């Protein structure tokens, strides 16, 4: 029987370039650096950059364009390619919580540049925290992990969020909810699946059809 676990982290190194990238800037000048620092300080002072995650380890069966586990079936060639050769996977949901959303809302009304940078910080933080979780998981369990794959990536439709939510019950464990639009609340939340074993490669943009994506690396 599989079990759902919950974990909380407070620290993971901050990557300024990623924050700038998410905020739409390719370079960081001193004004932008100051703005990022001001936003980071404010967010940290009110404690809205903490990370909560829940996950379950499941046996998976990977076919050519489907991945099956725990009675669910995800249809996606791209995902199957990522998970190719693995027998187990971590399915996770995680969030920074509602505090960062509140802060973004506040500045969206009174100072949009801060809202934009805080969006970037939120995106960078949650990704860095997941990286941190993965590194720890690898160390603790002595395994390699594939890149993580989320509903909405490549040909894995956003509809699959419903399956991830049915499996993990994130509202109960970490307070993350699924909206009718299939986006999540709080907004700085991520779900995904990570193969255990298999190819230990970081994000691989070549495995994605969105060739004009502004975040393509």
């Amino acid at each position, binding site marked *: 029987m599989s*079990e759902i676990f919950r974990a909380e982290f407070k620290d993971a190194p901050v990557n300024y370039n990623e924050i700038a990238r998410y905020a739409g800037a390719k370079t960081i000048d001193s004004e932008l650096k100051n703005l990022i620092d001001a936003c980071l300080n404010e967010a940290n002072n009110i404690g809205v950059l903490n990370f909560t995650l829940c996950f379950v380890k499941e046996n998976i069966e990977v076919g050519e364009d489907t991945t099956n586990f725990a009675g669910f079936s995800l249809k996606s060639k791209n995902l199957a390619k990522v998970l190719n050769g693995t027998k187990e996977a971590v399915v996770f949901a995680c969030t920074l919580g509602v505090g960062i959303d509140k802060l973004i809302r506040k500045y969206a*009304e009174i100072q949009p540049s801060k809202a*934009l940078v805080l*969006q970037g910080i939120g995106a960078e933080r949650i990704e860095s925290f997941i990286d941190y979780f993965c590194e720890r998981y690898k160390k603790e369990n002595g395994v390699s992990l594939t890149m993580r794959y989320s509903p909405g990536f490549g040909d894995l439709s956003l509809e699959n969020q419903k399956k991830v939510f049915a499996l993990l019950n994130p509202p109960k464990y970490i307070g993350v909810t699924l909206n009718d639009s299939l*986006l999540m*609340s*709080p907004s700085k939340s991520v779900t995904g699946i990570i193969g255990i074993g298999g190819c230990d490669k970081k994000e691989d943009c070549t495995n994605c059809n969105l060739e004009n994506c502004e975040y393509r690396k």
Partner: protein
Amino acid sequence: MDFREFLKNNNVIVDGATGTELQKAGLQVGELPERWNITHPEVLINLHKAYYDAGSNIVSANTFGANSLRYNDKELEEVIACAINNVKKAKELSTGNQEKFIAVDIGPTGKLLEPYGDLKFEEAVEVFAKTVRLAVKYGADLLFIQTMNDSYETKACVLAAKENSNLPIFVSNAYNEDGKLMTGATPYTMACMLEGLGVDAIGANCSFGPKELEDVIQKLLEVSSLPVIFMPNAGIPKNENGMAVYDVSAKDFAESVSNMVGKGVRVAGGCCGTTPEYIKLLVDLVKDKPVSKVEYKGLTHICSNSKEARFGYKPLIIGERINPTGKKRFKQALIENDIGYILNEGLSQSECGADVLDVNVGIPDIDEKEVLPKTVQKLQEIIDLPLQLDTSNVEAMEKGLRIYNGKALINSVNGKKESMEAIFPLAKKYGGAIIALTLDENGIPNTPQGRYEIALKILEEAKKYGIKKEDIIFDTLCMTMSVDPEAGNKTLNALKLIKEKTGCNTSLGISNVSFGLPDRESVNAAFLTMALQNGLDAAIINPFSKGVMDSICSFNVEAGKESEEEYKKFITNIINKATNQGGNVANVKSLSDAIIIGLKDEAKQKTKELLATKSALDIINEEVIPALDEVGKKYENKTFYLPQLLISAEAAKQAFDAIKDSSSVKNSSVKCDFVIATVFGDIHDIGKNIVKLLLENYGFNVIDLGKDVPQRTIVDEVIKRHAPLCGLSALMTTTVPAMEETVAMLKKEAPWCKVVVGGAVLNESYAQKMGADKYAKDAMETVRYAEEIYSKLV
């Protein structure tokens, strides 16, 4: 026995976990546990019986997730009917001889409420109402609202319970490690709100083991006048060979929980990981504990989701600036739906030290019953302070109180029969402390005795509605000194008399005293000090007024209500604010430099300097617009990126604000109307706000309808204004149809209007297909297009 009677004189034992026990019996991850009521009744009956046998007074039916978002109406009824029936059978079969009751367990909907999620408050009320009605129909003894991690959802659930049953209501919340709910509520604010709503017991469950939750329980015991519930987990699950193992043993659990019963907890049980064994040991230990008296704390307090304001300690500052009376700019903001302006007024007052914000949006041109609740929601979205709802429109008051997250301050009731009959039922239903004005059908009595008699009448009447005197705050009405030199004295004498005789808290709108006089600040400050000396508990004042704020700080220190350190901090803040209005202005050559670099204070300062020698129009045309154009070009050439574009735009906005503040300019720069909205169903508005900021800088009169705006509202606004331009934004593929419909309606009903669309999911061909006049890839492109259309108009 009636459950409420039982609760009065006994410690109440609740059952332990259901979910983790069902998992042991084979419930799979991803399976809906409530279906087991129908498919595995024997498992449920055995479990419930084991809890009754262990000595539980309350066993909860397996209905935690039984709501209409997860089940259709037919299945929901079946699930709840079977769930209650299973407990009934267990009750019959049990050998325990204690009093036994059946609870219907109500957990969160699984959706987050607006504004941070997409479930509307009233939808949440209706979801819970369906469950409550079924609980009543199938014979529950009480409603047990559990594991809620959001105060707002908790309120929706309690309202549904009150509106659809007379059953006792228990509310237990799931607190995080930081001692707060996920959305920020504290034990103090939860106690304040839930007592206001009139539930029967409050507490904490789930999350952690008994030790970690002790602090939360202590806080609840400290402020709650209701029985306190404590139902922790059996610790925290640890991963042992892939299995979750809870780390607190039954013995340790029972000791810790019963220990808290000794300290005042009246309702005890267990959550995740606990079993009948845990409850059995708990029952054995609680048997020897006394039944603590639930003490009435007599607090006068109000709260928002996350902040409590308590009367009778330090005088509270109620900020009066969110009020259109005598403020042209504010009225304009209300008419134009410029919520940003109102929010800024709120945030600035908060920064200046206000404890509570008065909210008054009453002007003849708007529908207060629509605008007040909307303003309340918007303010609560970004400001933590509790609010005082200030309206004479009873319908607006009800809507505002209903939608309010927390326990609000109601401004106001008075001694007139009609007023009390309208306001007291609202306060009773939604909770709320009430400002009571000492006037009645015969006007304002001239003597302190007369005002005191009205106070007594108000208290008498409030009592009939079950409203306690602690929820009544008297305002003895401050009249202007310019008409009656004795006005101040009469008010203060009445204040003192009422406070001494009734023990109630007091509040005054201070600035009335100086109405019609010069140098009002000094008069107000002096009067405020006198009022404080006479026992004033809350002052409705202007937090931007240094004189008045200084006098309240000085009083607090001199009357020993504040540490000197706090005082110094406060004063330094105010001084900084006062002297910083010029700011630490760096040395930049020109206004246009300040804008290009993005220095806000400098931009404001330079504009002020320029206004002494130049006309507003010249400043805009010679300095601001060229600077904006240069920034725009840099952005288009990709030497500037979005954050820099915004930083500059905000600096330019400071220049415009400085120009608007100077009286010399009358709409000199307004080009034409531009109606803008994020379409129906979409709640993403950062992009839209960026476009708005830039358009305003370029002189367009932007009518911002906000986000999630129905098609009809947008079209009506365009027609009403005969607006030549309309901008629509959508981020999600799912909301593009709403955009298409809006464009089609605009084309049909407002063919003169050029429609610009934008947002992450759109592109040129998509925009063309839906019939939009223009696809703009970013804010600058929208500005360029708007300029082009405008140039053809003139």
